[in-house]
């Protein structure tokens, strides 16, 4: 049985422009101790998915539709009353955020905030919470933890604060850690350290990690499996190795092609043309159709998540899986060259 099982999650928001179907039928599983990456562009529903799992969707304007299911072990989280959900948060699922600069309360010391989390969830005394808190700071690689314990957030660097956020998330020994763009706001060198730290901790705590990011490099570095999201849907899933070496969905192909490869292109970019459609008004049929180099008449019908032939556990939301003969080598490069020359 997977640790977390999300089935047909639909989270809609009522906005002035209309009903935004931010997450529209997302399903995935995370096993104990596994790291799953969710990748996609801004606005594809990654963050809303993670907030839905945490039960932190503001209602109104947000709403998780009946028929959606989020199960942690054998408990249906969507059916839990708020009071019990609060106990799940922090206790069994913890979350760290993108912006470490504002993730800590500026008026309390770091130690005070770690102690609060520990005392609330584990019923510890003050001295005991301090001892464990300092231990956690050491675990997340903060030098001089005793001194840092008494400092205020503004005295610490961004990377340091993200480490402290991780320490707070770990304080209650969660089974699942959701990391929403944990390195986006950090310097590249610090990014690598934080990712290494996450991988370390996951290793010796046997904690599952749900990593939300738009950075494929990050995914390649730490994830076991990947779910690619586009326009509120899962478009492809598979192991990191499979996704990176044999992408099936044209969107994934585009994402990988858009990574700048200095050795080959001398810095030339290959962006996916066009933009993500609006969540208020998804296109009919395949939502990637307008930007897809392979699109043909069949794409007017919405494709289901199709199993990839002879690759168990992989799925792609593309009609190409039914008509592999239409798949041609990615012609994107030639077109891009042409465009560049004509300019």
């Amino acid at each position, binding site marked *: 049985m997977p640790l977390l099982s999300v089935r047909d999650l639909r989270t809609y928001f009522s906005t002035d422009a209309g009903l935004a179907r931010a997450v529209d039928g997302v399903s995935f599983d995370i096993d104990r101790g596994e790291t799953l990456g969710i990748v996609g562009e801004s606005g594809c529903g990654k963050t809303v998915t993670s907030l839905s799992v945490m039960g932190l969707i503001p209602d109104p304007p947000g709403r998780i539709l009946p028929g959606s299911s989020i199960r942690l072990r054998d408990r249906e989280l969507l059916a839990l009353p708020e009071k019990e959900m609060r106990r799940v948060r922090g206790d069994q699922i913890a979350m760290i955020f993108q912006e470490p600069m504002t993730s*800590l309360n500026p*008026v309390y010391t770091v130690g005070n905030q770690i102690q609060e989390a520990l005392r609330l969830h584990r019923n510890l005394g003050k001295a005991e919470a301090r001892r464990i808190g300092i231990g956690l700071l050491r675990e997340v690689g903060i030098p001089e933890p005793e001194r840092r314990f008494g*400092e205020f957030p503004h005295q610490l660097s961004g990377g340091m604060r993200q480490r402290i956020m991780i320490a707070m998330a770990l304080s209650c020994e969660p089974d699942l850690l959701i990391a929403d763009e944990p390195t986006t706001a950090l310097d590249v060198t610090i990014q690598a350290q934080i990712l290494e730290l996450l991988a370390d901790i996951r290793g010796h705590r046997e904690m599952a990690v749900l990593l939300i990011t738009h950075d494929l490099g990050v995914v390649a570095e730490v994830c076991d499996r990947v779910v690619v999201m586009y326009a509120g849907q899962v478009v492809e899933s598979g192991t990191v190795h499979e996704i990176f070496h044999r992408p099936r969905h044209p969107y994934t192909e585009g994402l990988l092609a858009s990574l700048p490869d200095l050795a080959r292109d001398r810095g030339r970019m290959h962006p996916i043309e066009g933009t993500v459609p609006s969540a208020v008004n998804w296109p009919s049929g395949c939502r990637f159709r307008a930007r897809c180099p392979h699109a043909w008449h069949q794409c007017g019908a919405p494709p289901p998540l199709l199993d990839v032939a002879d690759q168990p556990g992989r799925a792609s939301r593309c009609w190409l899986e039914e008509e592999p003969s239409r798949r041609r080598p990615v012609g994107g490069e030639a077109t891009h060259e042409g465009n560049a020359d004509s300019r």
Partner: protein
Amino acid sequence: MPPGVRPTDRPVLAVLVPGLPQLLRGRIASGGFALLLWIFFVVVVVVRWDRVSGAIAAGFDHQVALATLILGMALVWGWSLRDALRTEPEPRVGRSQWTLATRAFRKNRVAVLGLMAVTLFYLTALLTPFLAPFDPTQQGSLVAERMLPPSGEHLMGTDQFARDVLSRVLYGARVSLSIGFVAAGIAITIGTLLGAISGFVGGKVDDMIMRFVDMVISFPRLVLLITIIALFEPSIFLIITVLGLTQWPQSTRIVRGEVLSLREREFVQAGKALGYSAPRMILRHVIPNTLAPVIVAATLGIGDTIVLEAGLSFLGLGIQPPTPSWGTMVADGRADLLGGWWMSTFPGLAIVFVVLSFNLAGDGLRDALDPRLRSG
């Protein structure tokens, strides 16, 4: 060498005359103020020894005054001694935004002066039983002592009932300052709680609270006060309550605005993700972050309240005679302004100085606590 870094070489002086070593080292503000307070306390003890020594048997007022005196002297003495014995500069670690704000505040001389004046006013009010030369309600001889101009015996003269104006101004300070403090305290407490709930919870709750605020604000406050007080027997308790209950909407709006922006900060989201309940988030995480504007609003609010109370008393709806109150005194002296200018002028000046001090201190606090206005 910056002041305050080197340990003083005269700790003995700090024991005998607190404030003097600091003053000699060029710290005019803190040293001078400590010295001023110390001299004030010592003079009170020496000149009013009979009252100070008999304070415990003389009733509640005197006991409070005695406690203030002892506490005040201990504080000044303790501060000076600790400061003088300190061998290291202020510790650099653990600087919170409050420490930074304190530093910014200290640079603002006018505001520091305002805060010192406010402190002095409150000390004076608390020590009044020792300070006042006469009983404020005691009438002298209506023939010989009525409406005497200021003199050595009556520093501010006497009024139509041959009462000592200075004593009445001093006792009036107790009324005005305590009304200002308590009423503003009530208003700020209600305002902060409602504002935080309104901003944090949002939705229908927010709408309801804010419409209620609009409603309360749309009443002309003075008319509302006059109506309420006219319906009941005026008493200090009623006036404090009514002033407090009509002043909260401003702070509600300030706090709500502040909370609306705090709510979007990630530490609020992070707190929720750690499973903190809404009351915990509001009381422990949101409200402390709004305290800066609240303190400013409170300081300025005390000044407003004192003026309003004086206005009500002036109209005869505030503190009832014979209890001295600045507003009443100004009103009473008005009829004889030409024959005895001192009767209205001194309580009037008292109002002006107190309110001015509060506003100066409040403005300084706002400058110090608002990071957008703070440089470096």
